[in-house]
């Protein structure tokens, strides 16, 4: 998650939600996100809410599982008091930071806390992100034993030079190893890749795609590198030490990835995500993209329940202090009006292969579809059938498409 928090209303210290938020609660998916805000080192491009040992004051990683579980308990009480009957989580996702920087036992303890509080649906997707450096055969097996079903490795690139620019510490040769161990443990495997790193060539990117496909993962994510303000990478670019990423090159690399992945049997289902089978799509992430409910546990985590969104204090110490006082760790909250929910619906669902039902749009938005088809950004046949589905070029211009679909 990005480090900068939006400006919004203050969040109530008791965390209570309006009754309207839990209307239809039982009919929606309910995801639980657990943030682990620690990394061994901070990568140059990263602006996520994560901390290395040197950056943090008075917070011990070993205490973290307990603090997160305190929020799980707090969340359950808030939902109960708001009138939402306890229900099992449909997905659980551990993200970071680097969740696997914590001992597998801690992650298992957190997961078991979720299970004990809400329950976990049978067959639920339970994912953790992992750095190839921070897992081994035993830890992966332990995670599987604890109930994890899926691991998402931050592979990023197969090219050491590119990894060095990104300041990723792992050795690409470790990728086959960790994937084999995960498979052996019975975990589904997803690989995260980054393209458009300054200095990366089309050949470099091809090597990364090839290495990723050789592992026969179930799922792949490919993200264009974003230079976030305030990161070391942004400073390096500002000083001219690293060239500015080029959008046209990034577009080439995206098209290259889509072609390579398609020929290997992967289909896109979201702008930056491909799955071998529909069953391998990330159900947790689809929870975000289809406007379902989720509770984000941990510093800086965002939550959304029935049109109410809030986010926690970013710093682990501030987060822990609030929970210790029995207060909600949330520092900001917004209640989305119907129009805002519609806007979010458009900007999220248009990125999906299922597309956006044209009925979500207003008259002007529906009128804009013809122009989008003419410009080759939207699939004509799908639109006639009532859904706005992006073409390959449209995926690369998704934000522009959204602006045209929401004209006002």
């Amino acid at each position, binding site marked *: 998650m990005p480090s900068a928090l939006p400006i919004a209303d203050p969040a109530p210290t008791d965390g209570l939600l309006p009754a309207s938020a839990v209307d239809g609660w039982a009919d929606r998916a309910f995801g639980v996100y657990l943030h682990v805000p620690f990394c061994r080192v901070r990568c140059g491009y990263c602006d996520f809410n994560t901390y290395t040992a040197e950056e943090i004051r008075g917070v011990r990683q070993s205490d973290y599982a307990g603090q997160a579980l305190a929020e799980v308990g707090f969340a359950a009480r808030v939902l109960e008091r708001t009138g939402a009957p306890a229900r099992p989580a449909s997905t659980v996702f551990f993200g970071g930071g680097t969740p696997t920087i914590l001992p597998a036992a801690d992650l298992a303890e957190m997961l078991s806390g979720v299970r004990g509080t809400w329950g976990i649906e049978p067959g639920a997707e339970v994912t953790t992100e992992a750095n190839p450096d921070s897992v081994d055969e035993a830890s992966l097996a332990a995670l599987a034993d604890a109930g994890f079903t899926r691991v998402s490795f931050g592979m990023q690139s197969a090219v050491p030079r590119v990894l060095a620019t990104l300041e990723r510490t792992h050795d690409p040769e470790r990728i086959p190893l960790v994937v084999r161990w995960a498979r052996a443990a019975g975990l589904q495997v997803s690989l995260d890749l980054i393209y458009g790193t300054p200095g990366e060539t089309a050949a470099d990117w091809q090597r990364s795609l090839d290495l990723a496909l050789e592992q026969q993962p179930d799922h792949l994510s490919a993200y264009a590198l974003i230079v976030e303000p305030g990161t070391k990478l942004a400073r390096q670019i500002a000083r001219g030490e690293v060239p500015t990423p080029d959008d046209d090159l990034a577009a080439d690399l*995206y098209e290259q990835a889509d072609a390579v992945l398609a020929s290997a049997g992967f289909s896109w289902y979201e702008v930056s995500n491909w799955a071998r089978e529909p069953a391998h799509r990330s159900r947790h992430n689809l929870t975000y993209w289809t406007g379902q409910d989720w509770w984000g546990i941990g510093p800086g*985590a965002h939550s959304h329940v029935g049109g109410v969104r809030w986010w926690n204090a970013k710093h682990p110490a501030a987060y822990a202090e609030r929970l210790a006082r029995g207060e909600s760790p949330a520092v900001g909250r917004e209640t989305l009006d119907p129009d805002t929910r519609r806007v979010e619906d458009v900007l999220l669902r248009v990125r999906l292969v299922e597309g956006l039902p044209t009925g979500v749009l207003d008259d002007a938005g529906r009128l804009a579809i013809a122009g989008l088809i003419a*410009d080759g950004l939207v699939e004509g046949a799908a639109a006639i059938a009532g859904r706005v589905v992006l073409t390959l070029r449209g995926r*690369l*211009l998704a*934000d522009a498409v959204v602006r045209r679909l929401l004209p006002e």
Partner: protein
Amino acid sequence: MGEWHDMSPRASQPLAPAATDPSRIRNFCIIAHIDHGKSTLADRMLQITGVVSDRDMRAQYLDRMDIERERGITIKSQAVRMPWATADGTYALNMIDTPGHVDFTYEVSRSLAACEGAILLVDAAQGIEAQTLANLYLALDNDLEIIPVLNKIDLPAADPEKYSRELAQLIGGSPDDVLRVSGKTGEGVEALLDRVVERIPAPVGDAGAPARAMIFDSVYDSYRGVVTYVRMVDGRLQPRERIQMMSTKATHDILEIGVSSPEPTPSQGLGVGEVGYLITGVKDVRQSKVGDTVTTATKPAADALPGYTEPLPMVFSGIYPIDGSDYPDLRDALDKLKLSDAALNYEPETSVALGFGFRCGFLGLLHLEIVTERLQREFDLDLITTAPSVIYEVTTEDRKRHTVTNPSEFPTGTKIAAVEEPTVKASILAPKDYVGTIMELCQSRRGTMNGMDYLGEDRVELHYTMPLGEIVFDFFDQLKSRTQGYASLDYEPAGTQEADLVKVDILLQGETVDAFSAIVHRDKAYAYGTMMTERLRKLIPRQQFEVPIQAAIGARIIARENIRAMRKDVLAKCYGGDITRKRKLLEKQKEGKKRMKMVGRVEVPQEAFIAALSGDVESKKDKK
């Protein structure tokens, strides 16, 4: 006023207006180039004659407007009455300030017509400049007595010997007749005032004839309405008298009559040869036109004084508010400026690129600059002006004539038989080392050389006939930059000539962008087309489709650039914590889109139009 202290006036008893014998009056002006110290010298005269006390002295007292003060030029003239005594008694000296720039030639000529003599003031370190020469011609044409004076003799770089010879050569007489003064220290100023009394003829007029007074300036004052400055020729004018403007026959009552010394001082009237002001309560300078003759309604004069003409705009430009919602404010501001600027005219116009604005006519480029600067400064408006244009007379094959002051009025869809453009006689004065580069510039601007005069030892005056349209397009900037600022320019209208002129349109995706259309010589159409298409390619952000930018003469494309389609405009990641941020970004982008102008389907930021018009081309910012 650090170095200037007590100056006691020589004349202890000034002469009263309306009771001064014409033989005791001297009317004069100062002809000088910008920066040659006219205002400083005028300040010293005000101090030495005692009409302004040291305590009240402000630098350059006569230049009231901020812009004038900053630019060192006098736009609006005024007249000051100063007492001065010599051995044979007391005199009333009327110093009439003149505008110093070529755009205001008509106003200058009226100010000169109000005088019997002129001080020709020249910087002792720089010598005479083209505009000063032009005004000197006007003064000699009006039979004015010229008193040559070198100023700034206190400067280390002053070369009075050299420039005395130059002035003597120019106006005749001996170099020894050239007075030497320092407006800064006051040196030589008393002798100059004595010389004014001695050499400048007294005004002559018929005291018994019907009143005739020439208006040489007309100034709008927000408290008092229009203040009209006049030079009495015949008869007299008195308080509460009903007067008539001879050009319009309009009548007004005099509410106040008086002289400036330098603050307005009511008097019992004005008699033959006197210079003063009238206030009638009118609110618009157009009712009190420079050059017009004032007479009395009860006993009007038969003939007006000669020399009156309506001010004619020579240069036109569209003025638009950068923020479209400022349009009503711009209209109000122009309405207010009009009250004090009889030469300004305007009418509403709309532009696809720039929205609602006004087509304005100006006397010249400086006038345009002054008006836009006043609009921005006094009315706090952010403005964009289109490239200046001149008046073209276009004849189509069917023998219809069209007057074109705006490229959009250029006839289309029909064959053009002839286009006439205004020309000017330009005089350029510069050190002789720059003759080559100046000739090159003038030739590239379709100038025809009429001759060249050596002025003194090392300075040359070049005479050209040039299309005005070439001068209004950055000629002066080019001249200055190619001569390290040494060249000076003066020009006056010289009729029209036929020329092979075409209208070049600039098209975005096939749609004409009106603000960029220009009427140029056929030989330069290609250069203009490539320049503008290239500028726009750099300035317009990439769209979701390819955008051709073309320059065309009619249907014929003469230059083309392409803005490649944008390839990528998508945030890679959009997870739980990104959604609010992403939505806010969308809101921001939509806000930004509201500031975009649509040309067909192409979104163009207002700034891109402005930058393209001003030539300020940096690479476009990627909007994200």
